[in-house]
């Protein structure tokens, strides 16, 4: 590889390496390698525990059908909930990031940033309780209205749930939970916009919005995309909010406001695992493995976009 190490030409030019140095460097390197091993271990142990479910005869699995028929609806529910959350959270997060970086009074900006970060600090169990106690009843009026006026769309076909424990509520709750992540990344890139570009746009007579559209948004686009993907990864894996709020029946449906909802992988594991034994556990772990692979892919793509941008941007 193209490292910058130089090969010492003579023994005299070689730096003195003490034993302490060697031990310390070795320990530090060992810790790094340990992390790689842990990540590999996560994959290996999940696979090892999932294999019995792959090998078992379909009749023995929960649901009595094959593994794909069991996990399929869960994957659908997982992606549906995450996509709703993303659709709600991304525009909101970009606006919030813009507000903090370009609209809020300079003095307040940092404090406001902390407040958005606090949203991320609230534990997911609290969001779950809040979602079912406050948000679910609050969506009833909205779902009713959507059903009456937009009922021809498959999303709002009804019948309207009377508890509010719907996919829509889950999506909104997840949106609240991923909002701070997307905001943080977007804020970071918006702040990196070269000041000269912004000032040039303003000097040409652009209004503040035109300056943002011409200088800030194009510069921050890839940052926003990767932030959204990080949020997507978080939403895919979110467990407790879904487990508490959603009334799941396992149906594959796009209907967001009825009480017939597909469960999500993570929510299903949390609900079923404590009471499961034997092959049911292996099946749940197999579904967890699927979730692991999905989130790994989403996160890897997001990180790839961020890193590529970092190398090519003129910001540093």
């Amino acid at each position, binding site marked *: 590889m193209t490292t910058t190490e130089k090969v010492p030409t003579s023994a005299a030019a070689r730096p003195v390496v003490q034993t302490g140095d060697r031990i310390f460097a070795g320990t530090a390197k060992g810790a790094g*390698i340990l992390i790689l091993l842990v990540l590999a271990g996560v994959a290996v142990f999940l696979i090892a525990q999932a294999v019995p479910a792959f090998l078992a005869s379909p009749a023995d699995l929960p649901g009595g059908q094959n593994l794909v028929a069991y996990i399929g609806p869960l994957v659908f529910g997982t992606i549906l909930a995450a996509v709703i959350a993303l659709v709600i959270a991304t525009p909101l997060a970009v606006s919030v990031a813009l507000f903090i970086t370009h*609209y809020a009074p300079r003095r307040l900006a940092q404090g406001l940033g902390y407040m958005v970060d606090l949203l991320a600090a609230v534990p997911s169990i609290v969001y779950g309780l809040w979602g079912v106690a406050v948000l679910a009843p609050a969506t009833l009026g909205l779902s009713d209205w959507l059903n009456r006026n937009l009922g021809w769309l498959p999303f709002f076909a009804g019948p309207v749930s009377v508890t509010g424990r719907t996919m829509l509520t889950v999506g909104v709750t997840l949106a*609240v939970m991923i909002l701070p992540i997307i905001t943080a990344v977007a804020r970071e890139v918006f702040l990196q916009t070269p000041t000269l570009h912004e000032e040039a746009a303003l000097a040409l007579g652009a209004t503040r919005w035109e300056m943002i559209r011409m200088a800030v948004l194009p510069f921050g686009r890839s940052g926003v995309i990767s932030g959204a993907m990080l949020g997507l990864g978080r939403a895919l894996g979110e*467990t407790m909010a879904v*487990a508490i709020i959603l009334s799941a029946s396992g149906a594959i449906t796009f209907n967001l406001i009825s009480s017939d909802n597909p469960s999500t992988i993570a929510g299903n594991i949390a609900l079923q695992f404590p009471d499961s034994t034997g092959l049911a556990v292996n099946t749940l772990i197999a579904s967890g493995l699927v979730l692991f692979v999905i989130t790994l892919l989403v996160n890897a793509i997001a990180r790839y976009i961020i890193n590529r941008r970092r190398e090519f941007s003129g910001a540093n």
Partner: protein
Amino acid sequence: MSIETERGLQESVADVESPLRMRGELPRWAPWALLVGSFVVVGGVLAATGFSVPLLVVLSAVLYAVATYVLSTVVEGRRKATDRLVTIVVTSAFLVALTPLVSVVITVVGNGLARFDAEFFNSSMRGIVGEGGGGYHAIIGTLLITGLAAVMSIPIGLLTAVYLVEYGKGRLARAITFFVDVMTGIPSIVAGLFAFALFALFFGPGVRLGFAGSVALSVLMIPVVVRSTEEMLKIVPNELREAAYALGTPKWRTIVKVVIPTSIAGIASGVTLAIARVIGETAPLLIVAGLTTGVNFNPFDGRMATLPVFAYISYAAPGVPREPYLDRAWTAALVLIIIVLVLNLVARLVARLFAPKTR
């Protein structure tokens, strides 16, 4: 009237949008007047049809945005009007984003205060049916499990960050950086399944251990510690390192005596935030640590209660009557939120008060 003549002039001269200064300008009080006006109009309409606060706020905001846009288009032109519209949209987006935070805090405090008493903090759920009882066992469990997770994660995370910043070059360092980033995104439930799979190998299926919960939390915590520590080590000025080398100090002593002490405030704050992040995790503990009714001080022996799991089970599977169980769930959530907020506050304070003076 001068506005009218100017507009006529422009349209006759060219079809192009004019510089802003050629147009009139809304007086400074106009936005506020419009805002108050919108509230009054919407409030009046709603008072006639049926009043609700959320509807009032939403409709007033919409009316305010539309009115501002129209008025500004007429007086100032389309470009300025768009600018004003976007300002309103962005500001209301921020307010919308803060609504859940406020609502969560109000709800949890409102519902949690009912049982926020001494009994909650000094009694467990052993032998309790219905009223009374508390979360003492869960608080102990949360502190023990999170503490153990911190003990495991902090050295590993710190050393890895030192390796990445001070030693790491080439393929291994890049791989570690990439996978630490990827690890940040592991769903917490998957970490729980990993810990379960690992310990089921040794203790058989059906294993529930407090320590397994710590392992699961470490998987979630390590990448956060690495990331934040790395950022802090990177901003230590190179001059300090070079000064130490120039005095003949070996590299490892430079790191231990110069680099880490310089950045210790930032590192401590990052570690605190990492603890705050994992202390509220529910899913992995639900899977591997389970729940008991009594106090368990030994994380290597059997089930351990934790605050989030306690809150979840109390809510999801309450006894009869339901109210005492729900009250305890809310109080557990309140205690959890207080712990997390205090940790966040401590982290910010540490970072601010003990920041090194590099200049």
